[in-house]
């Protein structure tokens, strides 16, 4: 792990309305094979990706939210949610399908600064 780089995936889009959320998740799962230090950050509408209770039968689209629960098996355990974004959407930590660390926007900015590679979705 000594030559592991710090990768951050920045997720800012709601699921289903666009393909970004699903694309990000797929890249995350693929990247996991390379044993890097991976963080997932959820900002703005990206926090909606983690909302519990998604039921996609009515829109005939695959519900990919259960896959966030498999991230642990992929040794991806650093999930960060921006507090301001969560609050603005009337959500709380209990609304998420997986355990997350809630950070202020300022803390998120700092964490972003520390990364070697940032991938934006």
């Amino acid at each position, binding site marked *: 792990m000594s030559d592991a780089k710090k990768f951050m995936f920045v997720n*800012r*889009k*709601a*699921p*289903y*309305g*666009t393909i970004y959320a699903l694309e990000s998740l797929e890249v995350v799962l693929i990247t996991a094979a390379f044993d890097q230090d991976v963080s997932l950050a959820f900002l*703005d*509408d990206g926090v*909606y990706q983690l*909302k*519990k*209770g*998604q*039921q*996609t*039968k*009515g*829109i005939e*689209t695959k*519900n990919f*939210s259960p896959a966030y629960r498999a991230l642990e098996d992929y040794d991806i355990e650093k999930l960060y949610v921006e507090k301001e974004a969560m609050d*603005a*959407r*009337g*959500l709380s930590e209990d*609304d998420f399908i997986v355990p997350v660390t809630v950070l202020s926007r300022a803390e998120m900015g700092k964490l972003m600064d520390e990364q070697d590679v940032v991938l934006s979705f």
Partner: protein
Amino acid sequence: MLHIINQSPLNTTTLDTCLSTATGGDILLIEDAVYAATKGNAAEAKLKSAMGKFKVHVLTPDLEARGLGDRMMDGVSAVDYGGFVELVSNNKNCQSWL
């Protein structure tokens, strides 16, 4: 007139533009715009205050897909795809705020 919005209110200015441009009638929130009609979101007050002028509808399958079927704010009418079609046919014209 029917106004259809499909963008998240916290990510784009689409809802604002619609609310300040349209003179009244029906508003239908679909896709990512359904977030505007959820309890506690930052655009809630904006939508609420527009309710005197507009009748606001939200497409249920899109709300449920996003895990928010139980969070719809008061005063909004829930419609399914059949209701979507009815709104289109009952209005003389329709603007999609893409």
